[in-house]
């Protein structure tokens, strides 16, 4: 139904640059998550698409039509706000019907479409209530219904479920994904939760300090982060400061093969480290075991005191204070001004063969 094209978008509020150098195409029927820490410019980008802000530079086109200067009411977009922004002086029905009344639809049709969308968000029979008579989750469903009922080409959601508890949040985000797929609508979903982004997106746009860090499919961003920021932000990661020299990177007493020279950052996922028998240059001291139920994470320290987290399975037993060896199976090296380099050691020998619990 609709494609969004952002070209050279920048937005400054006075001296604060909220967004810079954004080029992005959101394809028809895609759900894209804008992911980044607080203050990274996610809301600003969403509000630019919705027409609530005008870019300082660049253009926004929807289906090839330049909408950069159009006010929100003339854009085919609909926004779900974090604060739900329901009109407290109208009933649920009134809130949802407002956009349809503006379009001067016949009464019977309005009633029918409101019923249908209430059904879609699982709130049939709630039309006569006031927003204040609903729970937080129900209020967000109404806000979603209000946006969906006008059949926008693009649905914008700004951390819509951030204020809800985790179970409800997970359920609602799955419902949003479900509805988005069923209607085949294009959606942009702002979140600061990586789980949420990984769970529902077709593609994720990672933002930091108003700049786009990486755009890609969830698995891609997890497996192949393009910047040290993305590596540290998505999923659990050990980030170590190190130095490249003589075909090795040395970080916190750990040495691993790597090319180049000068300072660099070493990124290793906890699940890419295995415990092994102690061996020079590959030793850690166990601090404690964190049991997540499905797996165990060993919090340990390297020779110079740097923390290193190691994911292992529950069968392994190590004691606090014990010195054990590690084997790193994959690692990534980020050097300033260079593409990240990824390495893997294929000489895996299972620790469990040596020490079975």
């Amino acid at each position, binding site marked *: 139904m609709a494609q969004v094209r952002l070209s050279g978008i920048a937005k400054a509020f006075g001296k604060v640059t909220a967004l810079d150098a954004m080029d992005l195409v959101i394809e028809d029927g895609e759900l894209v998550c804008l992911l980044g820490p607080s203050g990274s410019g996610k809301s600003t980008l969403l509000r630019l698409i*919705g027409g609530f802000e005008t870019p300082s530079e660049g253009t926004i086109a929807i289906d090839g039509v330049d909408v950069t200067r159009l006010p929100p009411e003339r854009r085919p977009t609909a*926004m779900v706000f974090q604060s739900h922004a329901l009109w407290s002086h109208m009933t649920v029905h009134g809130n949802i019907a407002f956009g349809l009344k503006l379009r001067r639809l016949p009464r019977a049709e309005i009633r029918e479409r409101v019923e249908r969308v209430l059904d879609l968000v699982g709130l049939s029979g709630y039309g006569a209530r006031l927003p204040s008579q609903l729970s937080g989750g129900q209020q967000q469903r109404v806000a979603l219904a209000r946006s969906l009922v006008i059949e926008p080409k693009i649905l914008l959601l700004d951390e819509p479920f951030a204020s809800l508890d985790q179970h409800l949040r997970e359920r609602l985000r799955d419902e949003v994904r479900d509805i988005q797929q069923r209607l085949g609508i294009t959606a942009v979903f702002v979140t600061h939760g990586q789980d949420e982004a990984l769970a529902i997106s077709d593609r994720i746009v990672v933002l930091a300090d108003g700049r786009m860090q990486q755009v890609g499919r969830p698995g891609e961003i997890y497996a192949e982060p393009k910047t040290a920021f993305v590596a540290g932000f998505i999923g659990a990661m050990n980030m170590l400061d190190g130095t490249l020299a003589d075909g090795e990177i040395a970080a916190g007493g750990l040495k691993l093969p790597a090319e180049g020279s000068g300072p660099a950052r070493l990124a290793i996922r906890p699940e890419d480290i295995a415990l092994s028998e102690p061996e020079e240059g590959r030793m850690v001291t166990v601090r404690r075991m964190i049991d997540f139920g499905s797996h165990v994470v060993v919090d340990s320290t390297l020779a110079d005191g740097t923390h290193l987290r190691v994911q292992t399975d529950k069968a392994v037993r190590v004691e606090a204070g014990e010195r054990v060896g590690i084997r790193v199976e994959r690692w990534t090296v980020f050097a300033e001004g260079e593409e990240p380099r990824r390495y893997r050691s294929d000489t895996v020998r299972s620790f469990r063969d040596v020490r079975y619990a």
Partner: protein
Amino acid sequence: MTDLATLPPSGALQAQQKRVRRRAPVDWTGFAFLIGLAVVILLPLVVTAVWAFAEVWRFPAILPQRVGLGYWQETLSRQDVWQALWLSLRITTTVTVISAVICFPAAYAFARLDFPGRNMLFLAFLSVQAFPKFGLIIATATIFLTLNLIGTFWGVVLIQLVGTLLYMIWIPVSAFQGVDRRLEEAARDVGAGPMRVFWSITLPQALPTLAAAILITFVNTFYETDAAWLIGLPNVRTMPMVMIAFINNALEVQYGAVLFVFLWVPSFLLMLAARRVMGADAFAKGLGG
């Protein structure tokens, strides 16, 4: 094994907690303040109200010796009382309507637009209230004298209009500021233009507080005497002026008391009704609470 039988059923536990919570300690300080307030505010009201129905009430008696509606009949059968009431209502309504028409859009502008000189202008509006009021009235009276506005309906309306600016600007400004911008954006988002957003979202959201401002203005203007006296006399005699004349001329408390009850009851009922409709927080919001 856990012994389930020793645990009370979940409902019972809740009931227990409720019982504990209900036995909250009495707030004696608050109670004392409440009694003090009641004595200071309510006692004079009650005494005056009793006076209105007392035909004979001499000093040491706690209750009147004779009660009756004699003074009511006498007061309410007077033509000038009804004329003054009708005039007061007309003046007050005119002042309130004009004030709303001028002040509400101005308040909206102050609340929402960022134009140069905004703060200065806002201060200017409010500073009218900072002048010694009587001096202002005298100055205005001199000007009105040359304009032949002394002793006229519109003269009184104009001077009383000035007195309403504070509440009719200040309260509505915070009313409009209190409307969440997201609510307006959400309306734009589903297709409403700026005017439509104002009528359908901003105004209804601010309405309870605006109504509070209107009510306060209406009541204040109705009972205003200084300006009405100086600008209005000798032709324009509003209700409070008639009241004062009554009290001054006849050294009988009952005339004043009758008018007091006669005027107080409706405005009190109006206030109560307003509270019911608007909710107590509209007043608090309007005053920046």
